[in-house]
């Protein structure tokens, strides 16, 4: 045990002290934030331009009755003559867009939107929405519905509260938001296994190819070397993760205010409907967060986080010990990473569909996929027996994978020069018996 700690300490310290660790730890969340921030900003910017578009509606038949609700982003002007010199009109700079209303013998007229530039998706949608709203309103008024009633109808909005009944108890169910949290956690586990599993492998290859291992194995057992490496690198990951959590919490306060404002103003401009806004802001309120069993969620997150990493980390270590250099690892990485990638893709589909299906249950028992799949399911509420089974199977899984990897490690670390194939793994495994 003493040796394992020593090795873990070395793995931890040499990695954490590297300049690249400090830079990447501090920079990557900022980069990620900046990345999403820019996308978010551009998105909003596109929907609410600095200057409203000036749109000329050429409506010869006066179909729209010169009436369209004025938007923040679009100024409507009407012209009732049928003139065809659109390009001249646009070139003169008086208008950005021209909407032509062309009479159609059937029901609705045909609408053509002209512009010198490409017309963005949002502006097209906005014009279409405004037209639809206005045409519907006009039709209702034509049929004798009073404007007051229309206003009332518009204020109506539905919101469904989902309630789960179980054991004579009912509880409000906010599973969508919960699932999102679960998915984020599953994603963190996925990234963590990948990033640090590969580091375990690289570490083993480094020691093997630099022949340091020859010096080490005369004072430590190869299996101790492997445990130490896996634990030390886990420490690095935990540290990095902890720093991220702290940085995120620190940034959360000021940022959430800014984002909240942006979201609010965005919804206001597009919906113009106070009732809807109220409903939505209730929906995205924090109350759901307190209905989730947070301590349970976090402790399970830690369990799957560590269990999954140990399970995969050992397998990565076995690869590192068996091959001679980085380039040989590719073919062995594939079968290991496939279930992991699959579980992430699969878990996206869980959110929308039945979180209690057979395949889902099965995958959340399998140690290859359970760290990701189960994590997504937990916020929906998983029967205790399933949780216990899944954790036990993950536990057995990582003990088996560590045992298997230990055998490969013992033989693999000291054998050089052979082309590594799947057969080699089997031979190494048998030899160490």
């Amino acid at each position, binding site marked *: 045990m003493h040796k394992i700690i*020593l090795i873990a300490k070395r793995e931890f310290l040499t990695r954490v002290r*590297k300049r690249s660790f400090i830079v990447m730890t501090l920079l990557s969340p900022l980069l990620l934030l900046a990345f999403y921030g820019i996308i978010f900003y551009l998105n909003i910017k596109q929907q609410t331009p600095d200057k409203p578009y000036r749109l000329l509606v050429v409506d010869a038949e006066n179909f729209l009755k010169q009436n369209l609700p004025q938007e923040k982003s679009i100024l409507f002007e009407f012209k009732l003559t049928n003139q065809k010199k659109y390009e001249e009109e646009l070139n003169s700079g008086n208008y950005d867009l021209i909407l032509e209303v062309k009479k159609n013998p059937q029901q609705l007229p045909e609408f053509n939107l002209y512009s010198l530039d490409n017309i963005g998706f949002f502006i097209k949608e906005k014009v279409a929405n405004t037209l639809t709203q206005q045409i519907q309103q006009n039709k209702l008024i034509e049929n004798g519905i009073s404007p007051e009633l229309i206003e009332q109808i518009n204020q109506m909005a539905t919101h469904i509260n989902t309630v789960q009944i179980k054991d004579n108890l009912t509880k409000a169910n906010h599973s969508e938001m919960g699932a999102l949290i679960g998915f984020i956690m599953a994603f963190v586990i996925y990234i963590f296994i990948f990033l640090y599993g590969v580091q375990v492998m690289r570490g083993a290859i480094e020691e093997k190819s*630099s022949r340091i291992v020859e010096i080490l194995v005369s004072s430590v057992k190869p299996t101790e070397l492997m445990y130490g490496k896996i634990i030390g690198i886990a420490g690095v990951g935990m540290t990095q993760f902890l720093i991220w959590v702290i940085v995120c919490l620190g940034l959360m306060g000021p940022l959430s205010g800014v984002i909240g404002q942006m979201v609010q103003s965005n919804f206001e401009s597009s919906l113009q409907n106070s009732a809807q806004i109220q409903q939505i802001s209730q929906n995205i309120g924090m109350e759901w967060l307190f209905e989730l069993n947070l301590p349970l969620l976090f402790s399970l997150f830690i369990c799957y986080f560590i269990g999954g990493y140990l399970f995969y980390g050992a397998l990565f270590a076995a690869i590192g010990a068996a091959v001679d250099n980085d380039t040989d690892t590719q073919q062995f990485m594939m079968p290991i990473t496939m279930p992991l990638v699959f579980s992430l893709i699969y878990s996206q589909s869980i959110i929308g569909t039945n979180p209690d299906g057979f395949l889902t249950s099965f995958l959340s028992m399998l140690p290859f996929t359970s760290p990701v799949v189960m994590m997504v399911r937990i916020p929906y509420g998983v029967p205790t027996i399933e949780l216990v089974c899944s954790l036990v199977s993950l536990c057995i899984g990582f003990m088996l994978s560590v045992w298997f990897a230990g055998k490969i490690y013992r033989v693999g670390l000291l054998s050089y020069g052979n082309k590594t194939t799947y057969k080699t793994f089997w031979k190494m495994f048998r030899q160490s018996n």
Partner: protein
Amino acid sequence: MIIETNNICKYFQGKLILDNININIPEASIFGLLGPNGAGKTTLIRILTKIIEADSGSVLFDGKPLLMKDVYHMGYLPEERGLYKKMGLEEQLLFFAALKNIPYIQAKQAIKKWALKFDLAHLLNKPAEELSKGMQQKVQLMASLIHNPKLLILDEPFSGFDPIHAQLLQEEIKSLKAQGTSIILSSHRMETVELLCDHLALINQGRVILDGEFNQIQKAFTKNEWVLEYEGNQPQNNTVFHFEQILENNASMLLIKPFTTVSLNQILAELMHQNIAIKSIKQHQPSMNSIFIEAVAQNNHSHA
């Protein structure tokens, strides 16, 4: 005896790599472990350091069965060696020492002592990758010495060293022996083996084909051959002996090989008869090199 092995056998993928190895390594001596490439020397060393287990047979350390704790009293400089490239020298030496259960203070002192001896003191904070190969070699040697081992196993310790450092290392090995350290030296540099080793074992194809004190082995391989140093006229062909020049660039040294079992007196009589001015004559001592080649060739021949 610091090490005794009893009938050690080791199979590797169905092939017999070590076949009934019995060697005895006396305390405070330098033991040469010799053999052609692939003879099984490294495998034997790995069994002695408990990196791998023998399939059968036993190893005694200081008279008792070899245990893991005994390995901490060994220093092993493997033939294939490396250092952590990015890690400071002192740091990695401390790490290696800690793995051998050496207290921090003691390790620190030992590092200081050896660094001074090997002229490395000013480099201790540098990462290994900034050092020349010879310097790295010295650090690796230090790593096998800092815990003051009872048994030091050196596998090709001279490779990578210039003559000056090789000389330094030779002196160091001798002084360690004088202090009571037992040393196993595996090397292909026969002249060094000859100079340093008290005992040796020659392994070929997994078997010990030669084993014992160096002097006795040399005696066993000594033949009725004589080294003659003379002046003036060269000896002529005759019926008593034939001769060959020993050194390309020195014609006044000859190796005398008698045709039959003649005594030295008969050879001298023939030389005097030819009126050769003898400066010296002595029995030819076979070099370790020629013993090695002869023994291996004989062994391979008898197995072919």
